[in-house]
């Protein structure tokens, strides 16, 4: 058995944390070859990850934006040497991996939360309301790994790096522009503390009190769909079934009702705190600690006391 793990890379930026977590998930399956496809990315930190047998490094402008048509051709070309092809479940991998699977005529297994054996995997369905164990009968297992539940593999000695030639690029789709929200805060999916705001926060301006609490706790900021739809917070902050999945040590939900689609993205947090003026809000059914109160009083006062 051997695993091809596709590292998370965006341009020259390596997603070390997500890759290291996916690595510790797949390492029990066999020797791991890490594919580092990017533009100007330094593969050394990837080669240093504990459990990597070898890095395949391919560099070129065509890999700068993880365009699915181009990247899937590259992965498919490398597939015959492997029994498993995996990646952290990022938006890029979610676009690429089903394409890879179809080209190999196998079924993709997305958002794997547990690897039970070489062919048996656990994944959430129905917004996390159920967990399913499935056995793949395909010769190659193509899967994305939901990283929230895995610890990052540490850095150790360096594995060898083989440079490979780029495959032909596809012109089916073309990157135009990234509109990235720069932030000095920790990354949402790897932060130890997340402070999230919902519709109850009321406006983009008053989201400032959520940001202030987050900054006091060195936390990432999250949001519900309603908060994003209303323009209080950008889309990359959405937590939930169709947003990001987080499992921090501490999750503070402010003005969020706790719809099942939101819970899908945060119910595996270690400690959940809910601040909501409605005592009947479903969020209190999953919260370890709750404050039934106006968030406009509680949040600033919490910030003040934690400074």
């Amino acid at each position: 058995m051997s695993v091809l793990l596709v590292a998370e890379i965006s341009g020259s930026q390596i997603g070390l944390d997500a890759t290291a977590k996916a690595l510790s998930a797949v390492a029990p399956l066999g020797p791991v070859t890490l594919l580092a496809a990017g533009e100007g990315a330094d593969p050394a930190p990837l080669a240093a990850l504990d459990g990597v047998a070898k890095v395949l490094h391919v560099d070129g402008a065509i890999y700068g934006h993880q365009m699915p048509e181009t990247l899937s051709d590259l992965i498919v070309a490398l597939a015959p040497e492997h029994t498993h092809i995996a990646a952290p479940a990022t938006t890029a991998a979610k676009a690429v991996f089903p394409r890879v699977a179809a080209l190999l005529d196998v079924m993709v297994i997305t958002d794997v939360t547990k690897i039970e054996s070489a062919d048996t995997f656990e994944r959430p369905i129905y917004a996390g309301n159920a967990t399913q164990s499935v056995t793949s009968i395909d010769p190659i297992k193509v899967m994305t790994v939901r990283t929230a539940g895995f610890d990052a593999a540490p850095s150790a000695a360096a594995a060898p790096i083989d440079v490979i030639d780029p495959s032909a690029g596809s012109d089916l789709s073309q990157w135009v522009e990234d509109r990235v929200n720069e932030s000095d805060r920790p990354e949402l999916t790897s932060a130890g503390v997340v402070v999230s705001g919902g519709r109850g926060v009321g406006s983009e301006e008053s989201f400032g009190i959520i940001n202030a609490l987050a900054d006091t706790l060195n936390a990432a900021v999250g949001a519900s769909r309603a908060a994003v739809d209303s323009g209080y917070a950008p889309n990359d902050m959405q937590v939930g079934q169709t947003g990001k999945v987080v499992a921090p040590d501490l999750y503070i939900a402010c003005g969020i009702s706790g719809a099942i689609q939101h819970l899908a993205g945060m119910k595996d947090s270690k400690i959940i705190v809910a601040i909501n003026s409605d005592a009947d809000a479903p969020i209190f059914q999953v919260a370890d600690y709750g404050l039934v109160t106006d968030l406009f009083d509680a949040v600033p006062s919490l910030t003040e006391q934690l400074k």
Partner: protein
Amino acid sequence: MKILVPVKRVIDYNVKVRVKADESSVDLNNVKMSMNPFDEIAVEEALRLKEQGKATEVVVVSIGVKKSEEVLRTALAMGADRAILVEAADDVHTDIEPLAVAKLLAKVVAAEEPGLILAGKQAIDNDMNATGQMLAALLGWGQATSASKLELTDGTARVTREVDGGLQLVDVKMPAIITCDLRLNEPRYASLPNIMKAKRKPLQIISAAEYGVDAAPRLIVNKTVEPPQRAAGEILASVDALVSKLKEVGAV
């Protein structure tokens, strides 16, 4: 240009999900079923393109049990012109895998020759987020997933995608497959007269067997269980009490 929109009949997103006692799947007996919310967004987008004169016909297709006719009628009531049902299962608990769905859709595409396929980004039952990408691969078409904005200029679709870091804009050559995210639009409700009118719109039924596609599952379900439930915790009286608690358990 013809737009093809695949739609799936799934458990309504408001229904509390229960697992069957034999752990074979989620219980779908006697629960409210609806059109997958992401597919509604895809239908809406197709209709808007037609209203803007950028498309001439909107064809909706569903692959599943006979009852999937209901969601096709809903799409027709929203304004789609015609519907195709590919009957591929007798039991609602048979979830036809995205690979098989993509293969069947590829056959429909061969017959219909649409210039654009708009699909939902994921189905809220199996949460796979795969069918659109798989179909794009089988057809050799370009794809753009998680669209929150779509502009068509001749031969190209400019798609704003919701990605981990924010937004990404891409140009995709048509014909293409675009999968729709929540913020692309707000789907319309069908009016009563349109619901009545929809009953007379053409709905063609084809048996999956006619296509000669192997739809046998590649993933064998061992069991389906409910995840461990979190117990409700304590309601605290004040911010002070919360701060002491968080300190006590070492959370801050």
